[in-house]
């Protein structure tokens, strides 16, 4: 059951990701990214992170991607044309990416024995545990994120403001 779900949504993720890669139109890419994120949310559930799953859907699929699509519309970006500005990207980049994947996958699979297994409901993180940690041990980082947000707003305003 767990395995099946994992495979279904895992495949969905990968498919969405590949689709993002293959689609020519940004909107399609955005939509396929949403697919990835949503299915990730399911995987979070499987891993017992229900709050995260919710947040994933709301924040990511909801807020962030909406923002993306909004910008795409705003700049009405059309089909991207396959210009050939960069050989290096293919010559060195793709091998690099492959190598990264290779070594990570190799290490993970090699260590699977040392890693545990995930079974449904074996470990559930409640909002209560989360908030305990978040508002006690990690209070400072949490507070500091406000600065981050502030900076972001400030920047967005400063950059996107029309010249006078």
């Amino acid at each position, binding site marked *: 059951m767990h395995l099946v779900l994992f495979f279904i949504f895992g495949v969905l993720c990968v498919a969405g990701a590949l689709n993002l890669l293959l689609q020519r139109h940004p909107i399609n890419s955005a939509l396929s990214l949403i697919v990835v994120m949503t299915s990730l949310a399911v995987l979070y559930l499987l891993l017992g992170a229900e709050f995260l799953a919710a947040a994933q859907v709301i924040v990511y699929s909801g807020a962030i991607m909406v923002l993306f699509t909004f910008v795409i519309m705003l700049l009405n970006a059309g089909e991207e044309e396959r210009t050939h500005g960069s050989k290096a990207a293919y010559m060195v980049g793709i091998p690099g990416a492959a190598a990264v994947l290779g070594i990570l996958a190799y290490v993970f699979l090699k260590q699977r024995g040392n890693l545990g297994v995930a079974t449904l409901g074996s470990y559930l993180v409640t909002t209560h545990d989360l908030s305990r940690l978040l508002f*006690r*041990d990690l209070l400072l980082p949490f507070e*500091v994120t406000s600065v*981050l947000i502030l900076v972001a707003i400030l920047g967005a305003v*400063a950059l996107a403001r029309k010249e006078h």
Partner: protein
Amino acid sequence: MTGAAQIFRILPEGILILTGVLIMLFEPLLAKNASRKPLGWLAVLGTLVALAASLWQLQLPFGTAYFGTIQTDPFSIFFHLLIAGIVLVTLLVTLDAAAPNAESLGELFALICFGASGMMLMASADELLLVFVGLEISSISTYIMAAFRRKSAKGPESAIKYFLLGSFATAFFLYGIALIFGATGTTDIPEIANLLAVSHVPVFGIIGLAMILIGIGFKVSAVPFQVWAPDVYEGAPSPVVGLMSTAPKAAAFAVLLRVLYTALPALHNHWQPLIWWMAALSMTVGNLGALRQQNIKRMLAYSSIAHAGYLLVAFTALSADGIAAASFYAASYAVMNVGAFAVISHAGGMDDRLTLVQDYRGLAYRSPLLAGSLAFFLISLIGIPFTGGFFGKFYVFASALHSGLVWLTIIGLVNSGIAVYYYLRPVVAIYSKPVHSDLLDSIPAVTVPLLLALVLTVAGTLILGIAPGRVLALAKAGAQTLTPAATVDTTTAAR
């Protein structure tokens, strides 16, 4: 521990954040095209207070706060002082270079303050999560600042390059943290060292270490993650470049030192070779790339790559001396580089009127002061004795050689020989007879803030070169707090 006592641990950061907020509050109150300079002076004031605060922290007992997420010790204080100093000079330079009612100047000042607070957090963070947040604060604010030359096509381009590649690297950095968390089940830096010993997947630690190196390597523009630097430096406004080529780097180096020497000393014979290579390549690539560079900002970008390399040499020394050397070098590089950019900013303004080395030909005739100080900083960058640049280099290589890294030392010093060529070209140009004086005439008169900035940087460079005693002592004290790294036996390294 009482709340007040905890507050003291983040006093400088807090003050800077507060300053930023105040600026944001006052900015709208000013008339539309009233001068924004007062905000700048406010920022200067805030920075000065922060500086004083971190000095005061030296008097306080050292230790952690907020459940061990943050720590004040000589090490963090050293970098706090450094960052505050850099920011101070940068603000002065901006005050001098920017037009009084330049677009969103107020935001710039605010961003500088916020960014500084982020960097300080990085330096004093004891928790990878806080490191990450601090890193993001500093990064995002620098992305934005890089885009501040919105009129010119170059500004946004440099911003987008910096932003995309930066986020790209951040993703690696995050993955690294994830892996380390995977290896140890914690993100608390001191904890990691202990738990890694008992971890049953230590290999994740190694991979995670590499990933973190990628992220930090990008921030400090070390080879092979240096590609962004020249373009970004060229496009960004000069004062901002002065800042982003020093302060975030210093913070990033602080993080790296903490992580490597406090969290992962056990893996030193994994990361020492990596850093060995990064150092050697950075020095070589940086210097060679700069040789034929005509654009002075790009040239300094390459030079900053090279200097990152020199600094990384100290990491490989695996000794308290090495850590102290790294810290000291960060300081000396910062001082002279910010100074150099102060002159460039004044000469070129926010929108780079003077871009090429040749444009500076004959500056000595136009303004001996600017010429003299620029030449002085470049000479210090070469590493001529009695300047901070020299003593930094000297100390770094002394510690490296002490750990038996003969070849790295030779590579480094030969590189510093090659570097002479491109550092000297501007110096010579400055003192040659002028060709197109119209550009030189466009250079405004020296203002008070610039004068202050130059005095600070020149004095700093000289002090670091002639009487480095105090700074050295602080750096050493900081190094001691990063044990057990200091106890890493250098015999393994000596091979």
